[in-house]
């Protein structure tokens, strides 16, 4: 697996300032910059694992109630679908994929991250050129940021 991670901070998206944190001001995990760094690192580790055919890092970061809507499904998937996919993916170890950070926002114990991915080789080793835009929602659960759900789309043609 040769995954390249690039963190491109798009200035215009960073204008979303940190919010009030109510009673959680003493927990640095809930501070804007810290939460952003934690969650982006988790996203990178999730994709690094996936590139090696290992969904373990993804599964270990799932929040209770996880539900995400990938572009190829007509309805969102649950954690159970993730567990099933993990068993099927162990031989999908050839993925090459770059990630670019796009944006982040936080309010209390809810955070959203936006990023792009560019896959140049799929897990089976075939050369591809797939660009996606992704959002994940993260919830702070039992002292840790966990992914609650999200959506991805093929990058639209924009002119």
């Amino acid at each position, binding site marked *: 697996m040769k995954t390249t991670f690039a963190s491109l901070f798009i200035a215009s998206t960073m204008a979303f300032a940190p919010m009030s944190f109510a009673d959680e001001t003493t927990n640095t995990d809930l501070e804007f910059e810290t939460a952003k760094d934690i969650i982006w690192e988790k996203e990178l580790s999730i994709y690094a694992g996936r590139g090696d055919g290992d969904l373990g890092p993804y599964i270990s970061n799932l929040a209770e109630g996880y539900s995400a809507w990938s572009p190829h499904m007509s*309805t*969102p998937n649950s954690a159970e*679908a993730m567990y099933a996919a993990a068993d099927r993916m162990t031989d999908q170890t050839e993925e090459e994929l770059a990630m670019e950070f796009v944006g982040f926002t936080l309010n209390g114990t809810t955070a959203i991250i936006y990023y792009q991915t560019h896959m140049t080789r799929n897990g089976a080793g075939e050369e591809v050129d797939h660009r996606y835009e992704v959002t994940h929602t993260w919830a702070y659960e039992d002292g840790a940021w966990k992914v609650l759900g999200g959506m991805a789309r093929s990058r639209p043609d924009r002119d």
Partner: protein
Amino acid sequence: MKHLLSALILSAGLAACQPEPQPVAEPEIPSEPVAEEATAEAPATAEEIIWAKELAIYEARGEGDISVYLENTADGFSAWPPFTDTPYGRDVLEAIGGGTNGGDQEELTMELVSFTQNGDSAIIYYQTHMTRSADGTPVDYRYEVTHTWANVDGEWQVLGGMARAMPERGEN
């Protein structure tokens, strides 16, 4: 504006991602029995509240009124529609009228697909089918949408989301 709002709960989607039951506050018991008030309705669920807000947002948007959307946004609002390279915040949302640019002719139906909640975080998934754009042009646009809602001081507010043109799919 002939806005048709329908809530079709796709059972497959809901069955796949039911959230854990959320604790419900103990009802307040009056010290004196009140005979005529035994009909207290169960509190609306987060799903019911949020879906109602989504319907209200689109209903108003279809009439060229973006204020309902704006007043339901959380601090830090940031959403990524398909037509922009990056997410945008409240200021842009207001400037473009939520994508209507001031038009009030939109006709659009909505179908709830799924909902999940974890504490003060919730995600709703739904589909929209626009048959007339805000400027009155007949169209046939189908979108899939997610919004993330945060419970801020006891009120659900939309923090962000994403939409995509409905992909063409085979069976899955």
